[in-house]
């Protein structure tokens, strides 16, 4: 039922979602940890701003990114002069999906870090652990499930992102078209059966990602 083009779309979507998730993982964890530990003024404002892409219409994020990165903007021109064109390219897909999924990762990881008992970290430090070692050997193992959960949610969000992607990267079959866009495009062209088949594939991928994460977390929990 799926054509070779459809399979390429599936592969492209997985690649971009995976690359985007890996890309946001280090800064996402760092920001989450900073938010969990930070007690100063403006904390709630900062948290709210970082969560905005979750509640804003994706098209609002899309227009903001488009304004920032389009060929008419200073940043877009600067990047283009260095051979990095974002709008209407796969990099645009990566940018849009990463921005949209970032807050999901940060929220889950932040909650996980906040639940880590700081006395345990302090104990590790008094026993001679460097801050980095205490993070790697105490904080991270305790917060691991939350980070994994957030990562999987971010990945699933990247798989399904539509609004920001279509605005920044367009809907170019074979180049910037992800599964979510292909479903829409096939519907636009009156090919609802193909749209439905692609929707089925997307559901299968999302299910696999969520289920695997649950399974890994449970195994980890049982083993710990």
């Amino acid at each position, binding site marked *: 039922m799926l054509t070779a083009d459809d399979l390429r779309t599936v592969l492209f979507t997985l690649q971009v979602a995976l690359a985007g998730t890996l890309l946001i993982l280090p800064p996402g964890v760092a920001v989450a940890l900073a938010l969990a530990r930070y007690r100063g003024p403006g904390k709630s404002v900062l948290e709210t701003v970082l969560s905005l892409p979750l509640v804003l219409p994706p098209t609002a994020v899309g227009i903001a990114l488009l304004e920032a990165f389009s*060929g*008419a903007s200073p940043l877009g021109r600067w990047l283009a002069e260095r051979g990095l064109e974002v709008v*209407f390219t796969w990099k645009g897909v990566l940018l849009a999906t990463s921005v949209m999924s970032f807050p999901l990762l940060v929220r889950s990881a932040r909650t996980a870090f906040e639940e880590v008992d700081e006395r345990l970290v302090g104990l590790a430090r008094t026993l001679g652990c460097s801050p980095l070692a205490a993070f790697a050997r105490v904080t991270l193992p305790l917060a691991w499930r939350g980070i994994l959960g957030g990562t999987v949610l971010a990945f699933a969000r990247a798989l399904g992102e539509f609004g920001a992607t279509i605005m920044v990267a*367009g809907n*170019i079959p074979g180049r910037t078209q992800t599964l979510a866009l292909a479903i829409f495009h096939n519907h*636009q*062209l009156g090919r609802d059966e193909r749209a439905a088949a692609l929707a089925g594939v997307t559901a299968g991928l999302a299910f696999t990602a969520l289920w695997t994460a649950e399974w890994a977390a449970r195994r980890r929990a049982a083993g710990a």
Partner: protein
Amino acid sequence: MAVVLALAPALAGDELSVFAAASLADALEEVAPAFVALSGPRPVFNLSGSNDLARQIAAGAPADVFLSADAAQMDVVERAGRVRAADRVELLSNTLAIVVPADSTLALGRPSDLPRAGRLALADPQAVPAGVYARAWLEAQGLWPQLAPRVIPTLNVRAALHAVETGNAEAGIVYRSDARLSRRARVAFEVPREQCPRIVYVVAPVADSPRAGTAAAFVRHLRSPQSSRVFERHGFLVPEAR
């Protein structure tokens, strides 16, 4: 909640739902007030690629009038039984123009220059009329195989124009009427009329509309000399024989 429900019929009440090709947006806004002054109901425009609109109407969307940028999309609606063949009227014609960003230094003077443009914005050449026309022209010029990989397909013709205006595409093919509107994009060259595929805008009242009478009156208004002048001023061609 109750207030919203009470308001809903009042809001939807005396309005004429006109589904129209995106390229007509500005011209229709200009012909609408004269219609309101004559007969009352305010036309509310749903503007998009004609293929998108045809699908919506075929699926049962509450349209009163359909104004398509090509005959093929009107056929879709006719096959769905929502428009009668006898009610279809050829309203307007148009030609194609090649546009570039206003500050572009690209030398585009004829079709064979087009491969110099990196990315070419078109309304989706698989379905949206403006893109279908542009593709037909490029195919006739023998340029399609070369240009197809560089095409940025957009949802409608105005989106293609916008991609050029923002510099996200180096060139685009749009209707002459769209090209005229833009200050941030300029016409590199127009497709000569003898080369251009025959572009026809077809209008018809939706047969099962509860406002069929008003819909027919609106179609008549669109064909009036007064409206024709507006369309011509916007760069459309009005067929001679009426």
